[in-house]
């Protein structure tokens, strides 16, 4: 059974389209929803959490329609993107109050809240007011309220944003463990390596459409099939360019003030050659090597083409 099934789902906000004719099936396990800002990730998240109703089409979560189906929230935990809280409450009070909305008694709710805060490493700040939390702590307390009732499906909208590297790593580990324990997670991000660190199964979304779904390595392969652009700022860009022109894998060259911009069909070979040139120092110092193609936007541009 698929975790989430969408059949020709569209969502409009007046004249603006948020999601455009999406049909997909999300399998159990961890799935990453990857897309740049404004791609439609949050709209998709809001649809699968029943906050919005599809303008067209049908969406089911865990086999049931989610819109106006409060029973289903017992099986779902949602960590929203927005940085919004009851600021005057402590982390423990807030998580407890939200867990109580899932039923059960006060004591069980407090225990569950404490356990969840411990899982996100916030036990020491449990009695501190949320208003005094750092951005990373606020992200983690949001995570805690989502997983405190131990849902079958955890839906996380940009959960790593604002976290410091250590908290980021711990959260990634937590998500992976959650998946390993037989439960499912849908996690959105606009950063490819964040998603790659959590799962190989991704959904690529841009401009309200699902562009690709499947293994992240297939997406990487798709990237590698397209010409790869590398920007090299160097002491002698023209000398470097002469070297590159002799190589088969270099497709084109152009110059900027103190840089050469190369398009290559085989990035691995090109980078190996570049590393050798830099190490030899025969053609002057190479100041900086950047690739605009490493960002996600480039992937989407390739896929749209």
């Amino acid at each position: 059974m698929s975790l989430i099934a969408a059949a020709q789902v569209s969502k409009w906000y007046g004249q603006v389209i948020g999601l455009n004719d999406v049909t997909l099936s999300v399998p159990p396990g961890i799935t990453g929803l990857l897309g740049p800002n404004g791609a439609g990730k949050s709209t998709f998240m809001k649809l699968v959490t029943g906050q919005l109703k599809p303008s067209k089409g049908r969406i089911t979560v865990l086999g049931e329609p989610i819109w106006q189906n409060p029973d289903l929230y017992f099986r779902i935990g949602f960590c929203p993107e927005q940085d919004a809280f009851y600021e005057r409450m402590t982390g423990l009070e807030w998580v407890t109050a939200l867990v109580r909305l899932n039923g059960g008694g006060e004591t069980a709710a407090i225990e569950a809240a404490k356990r969840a805060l411990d899982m996100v490493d916030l036990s020491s700040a449990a009695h501190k007011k949320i208003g005094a939390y750092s951005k990373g702590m606020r992200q983690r307390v949001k995570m805690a309220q989502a997983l405190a009732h131990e849902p079958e499906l955890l839906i996380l909208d940009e959960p790593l944003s604002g976290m410091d590297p250590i908290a980021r790593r711990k959260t990634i580990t937590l998500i992976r463990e959650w998946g390993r324990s037989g439960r499912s997670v849908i996690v959105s991000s606009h950063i490819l390596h964040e998603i790659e660190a959590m799962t190989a199964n991704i959904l690529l979304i841009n401009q309200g459409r699902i562009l690709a779904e499947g293994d992240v390595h297939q997406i990487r392969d798709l990237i590698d099939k397209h010409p790869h652009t590398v920007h090299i700022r160097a002491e002698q860009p023209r000398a470097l360019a002469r070297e590159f022109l002799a190589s088969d894998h270099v497709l084109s060259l152009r110059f900027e003030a103190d840089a050469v911009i190369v398009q290559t069909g085989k990035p691995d070979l090109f980078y190996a050659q570049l590393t050798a040139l830099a190490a030899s120092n025969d053609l002057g110092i190479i100041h900086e090597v950047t690739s605009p193609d490493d960002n996600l936007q480039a992937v989407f541009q390739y896929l749209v083409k």
Partner: protein
Amino acid sequence: MAASPANRRPSFVSSVLRIFDLSLSEMLWSRRSVFLALLVGGPILLAVVSRVVWMFGPNESLRINGGAVSGASIFGLMIWLLYVRFIVPILGVFYGTSLIADEVEDRTITYLFTRPIQRGAVLVGKYLAYLACTVLLILPSVMVVFFLMVPVGGGSIAQMFPSLLADLGMLAAGLAAYGAVFAWVGARVKRPLVAGLVFVLGWEPAVLLFPGYLKRATVAYYLQGLVPHAMPQDSTMSLLLQTFADMPGILPSLVALVVLTAGALWFAARTVASREYVLEQ
């Protein structure tokens, strides 16, 4: 990992109480409450001034336009003019319209709407928190004014006490009705505060002046049927109101207010349940 904290969702009533619990302190300590506490402090200030004037004045009773007026009459006047016609509707508008709007504006509504409780329970729980909050704001104010004003001119607190209880009940009924109506307006309308203020400061005072059935489309018409004090005759407006007075009895007023409150709450809950809330990013 330990067992899940609960294995079945709470009932509607239980959900309402949990939302009430979550919302009450947030509501009580909000900036809105501080501002409105100043508003309900106005009559207290007025009562203190009147009491001081009486204590240090040359007369045994207060005089308005040359005529002696008892403290109990001034208290009745304050109930009519300050509480029934102004403070109660204003509290209803400011709190009622914001029950859901505040959560939407603060973007915390997501946490409540992604829990296994009915959206209607969220509205009703917040409405009860509003009622508790406004009652806690207004009742102390009325009681202080009562104890300050009634003894002026030799009035008996003991004798007037049943009337105070009637006042408190009537004000609570007014808060309940206005709150429910504006909870519906808040759930339905895009700029609920403007619509609410137009209703209480424009529509209600205007239609109460005219004879006919239009006044039945107000909360004030039924609420004034419960006021235990005589309607003041302090201005042209009051004289007009007296002229066209078509005061419903206590029982019809009570029934109408209960129906109005329950109906408005039901419609508000339905609206909240079926409406999508698109939060600003």
